[in-house]
């Protein structure tokens, strides 16, 4: 796995400290790292070539060589350039005054059109529209059933013209929308290969028949170098107005977004990040740029943690955590939360230095499992009042969990340490505002909701979690941090 680009550039420039002035050759070395990072992210190799050449020019033109922190400066230049190329301002969905508006989705097989269609419908419905979904994939078995089921979940009507030709279904759907007073028709089409003449002609015919206001191409974020060929073919045969990048909840860097912009000029309009109908997001070029460079999607992780912190933590629990009265039941709950965020691994990966820590094998995901087993062998009283845990109780728990007493002792120790740490933080919080400037009202602190400490992460060095999400942060803290990073 490639390490975070900033770290790698740090390495490149690190040796050069004390050498005084950097040379063009040093910049070349940095550009090689950037090239590799972009290729690793699946940016098309032609685009990479052009991009790196421009970045080098910029780096030479600016005072990077003279600066004390060349690595950071190169990263800044590259990030800025990448963000700009991805589209400086977000492009919105454009609707006309025609009734109904027609939105058509196209793309390769398995790219995620049907899911995206339902998400788009959900979004528009929440914005006060009355969408109608049209099932024009007549080839894949049960495709219309899938759309109908998704439509049912979000309470949006699905038009299916079983047995009819896709062009006819599209036409009928528009008529149906007029009859039933719906203002938007979303047409889900079959996945097709860009080299399949017949199927491409069909897509063009659907377009011709219903004259969509917007055509979106749905592109899988995991697509490799071929994305350029595919997108250009779709552009030529049906043309489209923008792209929905799907499967963005995975860990693909999504360099295809850059290739698409560069080769077709088409904007990315939405990103689709999961199976929930609400997970269609507007595209953020700056976040995408960071993601492509492997700089960890801090922002979305923080947002994720924020939502969890707000929705999952009960007031009482939060208050108790804030007072550092940790119990083993809290430990279990924390464990559940870490899992919801995708496990320690994915949490770490999103943090600066996290990938390095992971690569160094310092994180043991299984430790969580072992912990849960041990805690499950405790009585409720023991969980709530850990001081009860004398030698014989520990032996009983060990036997119940099928582990050595040693493991139980270790857990208890870990627990005590965490509790101490939280106490310390609690004390910090309690200091007068003058000593520890803090925005926001004091009174609010009582209502703070904590993001839990992450167990097992204590093994990490200073560069790891300690500097990131460790400690107990309130949802407000998180929001602030998120805003800062945006």
């Amino acid at each position: 796995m490639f390490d975070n680009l900033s770290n790698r550039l740090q390495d490149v420039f690190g040796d050069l400290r004390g050498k005084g002035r950097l040379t063009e050759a040093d910049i070349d070395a940095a550009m090689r790292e950037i090239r590799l990072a972009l290729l690793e992210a699946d940016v098309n190799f032609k685009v990479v070539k052009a991009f790196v050449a421009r970045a080098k020019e910029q780096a030479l033109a600016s005072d990077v060589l003279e600066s004390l922190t060349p690595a950071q400066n190169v990263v800044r230049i590259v990030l800025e350039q990448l963000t700009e190329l991805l589209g400086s301002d977000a492009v919105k969905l454009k609707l006309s005054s025609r009734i109904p508006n027609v939105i058509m989705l196209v793309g390769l097989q398995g790219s995620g059109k049907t899911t995206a269609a339902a998400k788009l419908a959900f979004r528009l419905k929440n914005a006060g529209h009355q969408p109608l979904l049209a099932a024009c994939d007549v080839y894949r078995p049960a495709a219309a059933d899938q759309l109908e089921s998704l439509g049912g979940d979000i309470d949006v009507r699905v038009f299916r013209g079983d047995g009819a030709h896709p062009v006819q279904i599209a036409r009928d759907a528009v008529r149906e929308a007029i009859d039933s007073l719906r203002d938007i028709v979303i047409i889900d089409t079959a996945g097709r290969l860009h080299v399949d003449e017949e199927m491409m002609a069909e897509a063009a015919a659907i377009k011709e028949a219903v004259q969509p206001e917007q055509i979106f191409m749905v592109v899988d974020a995991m697509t490799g170098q071929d994305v350029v060929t595919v997108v250009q073919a779709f552009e030529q045969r049906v043309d489209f107005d923008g792209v929905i990048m799907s499967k963005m909840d995975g860990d693909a860097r999504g360099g295809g977004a850059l290739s698409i912009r560069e080769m077709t000029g088409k904007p990315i309009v939405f990103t689709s990040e999961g199976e929930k109908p609400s997970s269609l997001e507007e595209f953020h070029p700056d976040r995408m740029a960071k993601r492509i460079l492997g700089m960890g999607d801090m922002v979305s992780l923080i947002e994720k943690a924020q939502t969890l912190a707000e929705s999952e933590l009960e007031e009482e629990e939060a208050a108790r955590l804030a007072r550092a009265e940790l119990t083993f039941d809290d430990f279990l709950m924390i464990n559940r939360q870490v899992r919801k965020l995708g496990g320690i691994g994915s949490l770490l990966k999103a943090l600066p230095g996290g990938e390095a820590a992971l690569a160094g094998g310092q994180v043991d995901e299984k430790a969580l499992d072992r912990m849960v087993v041990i805690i499950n062998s405790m009585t409720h009283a023991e969980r709530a009042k850990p001081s009860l845990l004398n030698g014989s109780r520990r032996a009983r728990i060990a036997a119940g969990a099928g582990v050595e007493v040693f493991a139980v002792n270790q857990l208890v120790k870990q627990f005590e340490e965490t509790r101490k740490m939280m106490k310390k933080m609690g004390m910090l919080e309690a200091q007068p505002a003058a000593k520890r400037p803090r925005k926001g009202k004091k009174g609010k602190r009582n209502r703070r909701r904590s993001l839990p400490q992450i167990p097992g992460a204590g093994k990490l060095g200073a560069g790891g979690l300690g500097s990131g999400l460790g400690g107990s942060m309130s949802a407000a803290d998180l929001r602030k941090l998120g805003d800062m990073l945006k």
Partner: protein
Amino acid sequence: MSIFDKISAGLARTRERLGEQLNVILDRAPALDEDFWDDLEETLIAADFGAPATLDIIDQLQDSAQRLALPDGRAVLARLAETIAGMFASAADDPFAQPRACVLFVGINGSGKTTTVGKLARAGVEEGRRVLLGSADTFRAAAIEQLDVWAGRAGVEVIKRERGADPAAVSFEVIERAEATGADLVLIDTAGRLHSSDDLMRELEKVVKVTRRRAEQVLDAAGGPAPLLVRTVLVIDATTGQNGLAQAREFDARLDLDGVIITKLDGTAKGGIAVAISHELGIPVLRIGVGEQIDDLRRFDPLGFAQALIG
């Protein structure tokens, strides 16, 4: 008929395009200069081999170019297919050739799992196997109906439960049914999932564990032990880029994969990521998908694949 012919139908386009590119290299730079190696590198990168595998291949070729004093680019390219083919892990035992097997199909959303199960069901029937399908995708809307249609096309029985049912419980039931009917090739479709979703990967681990445990205890009609060999196969889309390696690594870490199937090779994507996966993780490629029809499935042959890839 050469192996070449067998897969060339599906790979015709791929071959043409990559071949064209290589011809351009040959025409322009037969000398073994820096341009030649640069162009070769670009060609491999463009085929999704990824930087590490590409550099590996180029190293090997540069090495033999020097050792054998190869005269020009043509001589180097003549060794390219072999070099690529040599990077694939070989399949010691084809799960589909085992006399009694249960294969679980796993992978990312939309990679082609269900379609592949349908194709393999037909292939099994044609070989005279007693095939049974199981729908452990109880999550995605209409996934069960989709597999049902494929079962109909292949003419085999499918075990299914209602949407939302526990996939491990469905798999358990599938094995019970296989025991009762004496099925000897059981194919289980699972829900698409991202390798980065811890919860869903855990679910899958459980499905495989439960299936394994039950499959070991299968008895034949006479009450003698007749265990089914349980195998896990990753289905991956040929258009997948470098993330494919992360996917394969995670699925392998969780399930100990026995093979990979690459789908959608009928497009223009070259599926170079398969080389990286097979090479780095030592997982053999078992079949390739070359279309949406029931017979659009081919056996995988490394040299044929590599030759077809470069023309």
